């Protein structure tokens, strides 16, 4: 499956999976479509990556801190970077659907609306993870700080999930408005404050080697947010894409 015409889309999807074998198949088909399209053009990933690296470099000049304070600001810098780079990915991912009419093709296919949601969300997640995986080692070199920390990685995973869930839903709306790209951050940022707060606090906890009792509340908050908003986004997505 690729991002060509809706007719090809429809034919491809009916030969790639049958509706009865369902949901998971549809989800992965959609995710795969996004990933293979990106593999060929690499526009989105390179843009997100270069942007993220530039943000990190800019932070060096924006926040001048003595080396021993670096562990304190690292979680904040990392998460601001991920949130902004993530916005790029979310915007683009939906804009492509709209501009090439793929969304209509997808909607015509005998696929549950929410499968489209999960498919897009997973695609967005993979893009975010790709950026995060590359940014982490580069950051640790530039700022001389050890980020080889599975606890930190888990927090990044949980935070990205919550961000991608709400982001995919809201970008589907934003792309259908007059103001499009500009609107997504305005809609998204106030709503993901809990994710940002919890992720930064938990990341900070792991990086500073704090006791688990201090970190667990933040992890719980992240998990709760992820569950609540994944559920709501999944239920509400069909209202956003109906024609």
């Amino acid at each position, binding site marked *: 499956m690729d991002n060509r015409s809706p007719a090809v889309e429809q034919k491809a999807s009916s030969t790639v999976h049958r509706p009865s074998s369902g949901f998971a198949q549809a989800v992965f088909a959609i995710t795969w479509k996004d990933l293979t399209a990106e593999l060929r053009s690499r526009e989105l990933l390179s843009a997100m990556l270069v942007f993220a690296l530039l943000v990190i470099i800019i932070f060096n000049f924006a926040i001048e801190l003595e080396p021993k304070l670096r562990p304190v600001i690292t979680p904040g810098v990392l998460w601001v970077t991920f949130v902004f780079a993530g916005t790029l990915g979310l915007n683009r991912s939906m804009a492509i659907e709209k501009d090439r009419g793929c969304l209509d093709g997808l909607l015509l296919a005998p696929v549950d609306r929410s499968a489209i949601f999960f498919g897009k969300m997973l695609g967005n997640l993979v893009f975010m993870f790709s950026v995060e995986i590359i940014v982490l080692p580069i950051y640790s070199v530039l700022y001389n700080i050890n980020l080889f920390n599975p606890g930190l990685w888990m927090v990044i995973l949980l935070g990205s999930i919550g961000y991608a869930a709400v982001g995919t839903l*809201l970008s589907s*709306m934003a792309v259908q408005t007059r103001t499009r790209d500009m*609107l997504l951050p*305005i809609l998204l940022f106030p709503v993901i404050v809990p994710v940002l707060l919890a992720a930064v606090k938990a990341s900070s906890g792991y990086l500073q080697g704090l006791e688990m009792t201090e970190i667990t509340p933040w992890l719980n908050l992240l998990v709760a947010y992820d569950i609540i908003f994944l559920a709501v986004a999944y239920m509400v997505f069909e209202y956003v894409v109906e024609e």
Partner: protein
Amino acid sequence: MKPQPKLLTALSILSVLLFLAALAMVFLYAPLEAVMNYVQKIFYFHIANAWIGMLGFIAAAIAGIAYLVKKDMKWDIVEVAAVEISLVFFFITIVTGSIWAKPSWGTWWTWDARLTTAAILEMIYIAYLMLRQGIEDPERRARFGAVYTLIGGLSVPVTFLSIRLWQTIHPAIIGAQSAEAQGSFGMTPAMLFTMFFSLISFSIIFVTLLWHRIRIGQLTNQVEELKHKISE
């Protein structure tokens, strides 16, 4: 467009009277507080405004869900009206809270849970209005509005709890005088009565304003439909 119902006219007059009465109570009846002197008097209307903000918030959330379920435009009208009123009154709440805070705590702003959540809520409202502005089709506008009301509305209590988990110095207004709770004060019966009178007055004011704003929404839709019909 129907002419203003008599009940609404009566409510409007009642609202004005109650507002003036509440003002009078605050300035003439309520006693002075021991520590904060006249500054404390801001509290009565600050809390009452916050209360209306909350009512608007809840009304918007209910209207949003109702629209998604019923697909009836009248819920959309209620939703916008409630959001707008809540926006205005939470704005007053934040500003009066800030004015109260400066002499009491020495700072215009603190990043405590209530204040920060109120600020974020204002941003969500503004985002909501910008979202609606960018959509031409009334049906899609209503649908997206309802979805964002749902997402935004759900995020607010979660945000509040997260920040509370983080820090707070907001005062506890009723209860035992405690030296540890920075900025708290006990309320005498006269103060309590003034407070409840303000709350009830502002509740009536809320209903009146909501009704007026809903009528504006209905008129707006009527005009829009007519424009559409003519341009075809």
